[in-house]
């Protein structure tokens, strides 16, 4: 019968993204879709969800925010971690030709995977939002994919002074976009959805809730009748 147990993988490369964020690149190739997540386990410590940043080989990005992420940051290249997944049937999928991606904070991670997986023939703009310049993530990564990046920082230390949805509003006022793809904190998503409704633009948003089992059993991730770990994490309607 189908099992879902953590498997060990070796960390091949660790990339310092900024002063508190690292990307861990493994040696293991998996099959994953943009928006899906994995559960990373360190034996006897904890197990937490992370968005898939790449699947060939598997990579994920970790911000140091607590005991578990601190332990991950202490790992070195060649060390083992355990993971299960990927999880989520609701994933990012390009609609149309003109795409607008918007990521707040660590929300840029799954959007990078979307951009990387679906390059040819698509026009993409990426909005990156962060608290300040030193927390900005993935700007260079998107540049390397030759995607136009616009930046908003809450303290105005880089790019637009203010929240990322302000940039979304500006861009949608200027040109026609087929679909908006968003990942970030709930207040940002609420704003994105409101703007998309106003401009009558399709959207796909990745919701963040407490994920525990990942397999649609425990109900920890339930949100307005949806199981975020199974039905999501990406949704095309909201509120449901």
């Amino acid at each position: 019968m189908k099992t879902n147990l953590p498997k060990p993988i070796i960390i091949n490369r660790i990339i310092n993204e900024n002063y508190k964020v690292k990307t861990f690149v493994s040696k293991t190739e998996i099959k994953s879709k943009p928006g899906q997540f994995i559960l990373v386990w360190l034996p006897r410590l904890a197990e937490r969800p992370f968005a898939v940043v790449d699947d060939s080989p598997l990579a994920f990005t970790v911000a140091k925010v607590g005991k578990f992420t601190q332990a991950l940051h202490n790992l070195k290249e060649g060390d083992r971690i355990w993971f299960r997944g990927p999880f989520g049937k609701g994933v990012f999928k390009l609609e149309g030709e003109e795409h607008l991606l918007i990521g707040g904070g660590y929300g840029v991670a799954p959007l990078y995977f979307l951009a990387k997986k679906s390059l040819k023939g698509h026009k993409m703009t990426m909005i990156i939002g962060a608290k300040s310049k030193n927390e900005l993530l993935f700007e260079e990564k998107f540049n390397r994919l030759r995607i136009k990046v616009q930046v908003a920082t809450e303290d105005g230390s880089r790019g637009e002074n203010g929240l990322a949805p302000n940039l979304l509003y500006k861009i949608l006022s200027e040109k026609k976009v087929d679909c908006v793809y968003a990942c970030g904190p709930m207040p940002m998503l609420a704003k994105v959805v409101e703007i998309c409704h106003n401009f009558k633009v399709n959207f796909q948003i990745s919701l963040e809730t407490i994920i525990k089992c990942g397999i649609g059993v425990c109900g920890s991730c339930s949100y307005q009748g949806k199981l975020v770990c199974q039905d999501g994490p990406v949704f095309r309607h909201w509120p449901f």
Partner: protein
Amino acid sequence: MVSLTTKICGKIFKSPLILTSGVLGTEAELLARVARSGLGAVTTKSCGLVPRVGHENPTVLAWENGLINAVGLTNPGVDQEIEEIKRLKKLLDGTIIIASFFGATKKEFIQVAGRLSLACPDFLEVNLSCPNTECEFGRAFATDAKDTQEITRSVKKVTKIPIIVKLSPNVTDIKIIARAAEDGGANAISAINTPTGMLIDVESGKPMLTNKFGGISGPAIRPIAIRCVYEIASSVKIPIIGIGGVTYGRDAVEMIMAGATAVGVGSAVYYRGIRVFGKINQEILRFMGAHHFKNLEEIRSSAHEN
């Protein structure tokens, strides 16, 4: 007409299938969605006097023949749960609500039962048998006949709502505990809670669950559950909700043949998705049609006849 209805304490269940406690949590909208897939009743996740975060992940894992879990009674506390059940009542149409609860002490069982009754669920389920909090609470009350009878009796005194007592299979003789619950005034018994187990990751050499031990569910425990329900049915008169590993219609039929009046379904959600209940209903109907049964009474306890 072939009928799937069943009755406990005069209350009509449109299907014998019940969502077991702990599976899919406690959010009203989610439980209502599951109910629409063809349930007779939903059981909310056990709540206690105060909120509990539960154990650190991993808390639920799927191994070769079933699941293992040690969620650790994560719950928002009884006061919040009352609001959730009130919301659930408004969303449901004819599906019975069973409100499950636990107490860290005998006194807490009485306190929570009294408060939870304010939400007016159709039944209260007294969870005497959670296997995953032994480090904090000591051995489950359902491992002792005297405790089982005492708690059942004291809960009965503080509520007018019919009570279901949930039993543990981790005992020497489940018949004695079942009789204790009946003597204490239980209106029904649900059995079984999960047998305890453990998985070790051989790569790291460490326990897989953060709590080390967990409750086993799914197909692996079905024969244990069938045996327990059979034994309980042979020793008490009150109705039994048979729980343990039911995944397909034939498993539900087997449980009823062992003596169950209704059948809990939980881990099957992992194997067959959130619409599993409708599927199992159809499979039971097909079985009944093929064998010319008109209602569940004709099947019930057939294994007890000579």
